[in-house]
């Protein structure tokens, strides 16, 4: 008999007032009992609607069935057929709008906690199966991957499994992309990312850090070096600013800089060589997942008041509901329907406040969301000594500026077809570099699709 409880098994988590002072992981993961109990909520539908909601088409009912049988390694094997980074996806995928949104159990009650089960399986495997995967026999063809983020790592893993000799070029000193510089430790422990990267290396993938494609080596040189197909997964790394007065004051950060200092450079650790300003009140501008991450980091660094300043309402926030809830529990103050107009500073040019204006929602705009409009004479000043701008990013120009024949659109994103083929033969692209800022799992899906297309391309060329 399936478990007919209308509610998901709750995720064990650190208490809000404890976790907002440390950088350890917030969600602690299911126990075996909880996982099996949750797995029993799955009705094992024949038509598998959940699979259609997964960007990498994991056979969800199959792996859940294995959990029910307590064959956790079996469950892992099913997931890893489709996903190269299950421990990551189980944590950061927006399951509520993907697989779980299609779950039949969600019609009446809560859907099966697919994401939490995926995480359970991946963590179980990482804890109990220490054997590294074996490198498959090489087929003698070389592929290059630009960027060691979610799309690049996925593409690399799939190609390596097919027998390709794969080299990943990464600009930073560490592989992982947004998984290491952006998403904080308390949401995605870096040891998990490192483990996934080690697994790729065991498959024979070479990772060259400290190589900026477009600067250190150009795309054309990669072809000269014998790479037959190239995948560009360089992400959308360029931060946007609002262009309001005071944005260059000391204490104004892009979310990228703030998070990179905290995560990649470990400024949260006592004695770190990389400085971060100590703040008492922080305003984070924006309403996405990145804004939630920045706000929660600021709180953990010791700020007394942390505000999310967002020009639309709570309903319109693009961040995942779970992230918003976690932030609220941790004491982040939500100032929705407010928009910054100026950042104020003292005589030494340090931030002392942010002037905001209240907003109200008008008619829907092009995005379908109601357009925020300013309320007259509603200006007020928020006393803050730090402002983090988290209003989006654009693709990096380094590759498009140095590579001939690569078409980009007006936003600077690479133009690629549904399998990732760009305007240049042998060059594929995917992830944020093509779509603009999106999610980890969409980037992974693109990396996966491109790997298949690269394989077909190389085979057809050598046929």
């Amino acid at each position: 008999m399936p478990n007919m409880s209308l509610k998901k098994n709750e995720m064990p988590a650190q208490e809000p007032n404890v976790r907002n002072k440390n950088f350890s992981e917030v969600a602690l993961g299911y126990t075996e009992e909880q996982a099996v109990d949750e797995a029993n909520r799955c009705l094992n539908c024949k038509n598998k609607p959940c699979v259609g909601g997964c960007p990498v088409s994991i056979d969800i009912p199959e792996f859940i069935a294995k959990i029910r049988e307590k064959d956790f390694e079996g469950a892992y094997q099913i997931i890893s057929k489709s996903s190269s980074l299950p421990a990551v996806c189980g944590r950061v995928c927006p399951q509520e709008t993907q697989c779980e949104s299609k779950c039949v159990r969600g019609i009446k009650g809560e859907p099966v906690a697919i994401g939490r089960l995926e995480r359970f399986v991946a963590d179980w495997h990482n804890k109990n199966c220490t054997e590294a995967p074996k490198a498959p026999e090489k087929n003698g063809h070389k592929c290059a991957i630009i960027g060691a983020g979610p799309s690049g790592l996925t593409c690399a893993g799939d190609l390596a499994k097919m027998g390709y000799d794969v080299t990943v070029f990464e600009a930073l000193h560490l592989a992982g992309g947004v998984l290491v510089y952006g998403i904080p430790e308390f949401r995605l422990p870096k040891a998990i990312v490192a483990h996934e990267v080690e697994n790729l290396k065991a498959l024979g993938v070479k990772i060259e850090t400290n190589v900026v494609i477009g600067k250190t080596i150009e795309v054309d040189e990669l072809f000269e070096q014998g790479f037959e197909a190239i995948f560009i997964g360089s992400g959308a790394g360029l931060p946007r600013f609002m262009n309001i007065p005071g944005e260059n004051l000391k204490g104004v950060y892009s979310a990228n800089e703030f998070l990179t200092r905290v995560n990649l450079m470990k400024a949260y650790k006592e004695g770190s060589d990389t400085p971060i300003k100590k703040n008492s009140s922080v305003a984070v501008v924006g309403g996405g997942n990145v804004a939630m991450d920045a706000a929660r980091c600021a709180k953990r660094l010791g700020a007394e008041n942390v505000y999310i300043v967002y020009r639309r309402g709570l309903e319109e926030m693009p961040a995942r509901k779970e992230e918003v809830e976690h932030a609220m529990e941790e004491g982040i103050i939500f100032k929705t329907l407010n928009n910054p107009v100026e950042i104020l500073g003292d005589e030494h040019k340090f931030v002392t406040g942010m002037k905001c204006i209240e907003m109200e929602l008008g008619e829907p705009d092009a995005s379908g969301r109601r357009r925020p409009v300013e309320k007259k004479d509603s200006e007020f000043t928020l006393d803050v000594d730090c402002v983090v701008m988290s209003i989006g990013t654009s693709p990096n120009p380094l590759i498009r500026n140095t590579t001939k024949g690569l078409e980009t659109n007006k936003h600077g994103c690479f133009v690629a077809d549904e399998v990732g083929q760009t305007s240049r033969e042998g060059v594929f692209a995917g992830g944020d570099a093509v779509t603009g800022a999106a999610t980890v799992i969409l980037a992974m899906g693109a990396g996966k699709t491109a790997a298949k297309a690269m394989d077909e391309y190389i085979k057809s060329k050598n046929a």
Partner: protein
Amino acid sequence: MYKIVRKKELNPTVTLMEIDAPLVAKKAEPGQFIILRVNEDGERIPLTVADYDREKGTVTIIFQIVGATTELLNHKNEGEYIQDFVGPLGKATETEGLKKVAVVGGGVGCAIAYPVAKKLHDNGCEVHSIVGFRNKDLVILEDEFNAASNVLKIMTDDGSYGTKGLVTDALKALIDEGNQYDEVIAIGPVIMMKFVCKLTKEYGIKTMVSMNPIMIDGTGMCGGCRLTVGGETKFACVDGPDFDGHLVDFDEALERGSMYREFEQAKREEVCNLFKGVK
């Protein structure tokens, strides 16, 4: 890991290191920079390329010991390794078509000005170099500048070497003598570049400066290196580091550069104390 193949103390606070980094050496041009980390968990710091040898595959950096990271770096010896070394980053200095140029260097900024002077000189451009230091003990690269310049003026604040005075005094004198420069290239402390630009603006001489703000990744990702140029926000790492000096908001750059001064000083003392314990 990147090997230190040569180390030379240029003066008590400035050190030269030649690093084995063939990929960077193959592409580096004057005006570009690299980012390095001395050790695991270390800070990423940008340093401008002082020289390169494409054949040998080495890149030379010259740094002043100002903070914890440069202190740590200075404790590394020939034959030892540094953790990370990435580049070349930023745009190269434009030297094309220039026939007569005044290159102005200040302090350790001379290390960056030198390869620019050398490249111009190699291209057949007439180079007048003006280099300024606080005193005689801090003078670096005199022979190198001599070889790369048609005219070399050395200035010291206290008159202990060369001529007593500021680089702007020497530049003004050269201009007043009737030298017509296509361009002035000024590299050094922000305050020096500010005053060089103030002077050349009066004379209407185009002036390029090399900005060295705080940065992390060096590829346009963090935006920490932003500065205002002609009323627009620019990122020094991808849009520069060279900018039209008459458009740069130097006062803002000075302020931004001081953001972590206290932290840096405390951190450096920490490192110094650490090494005192060892030695």
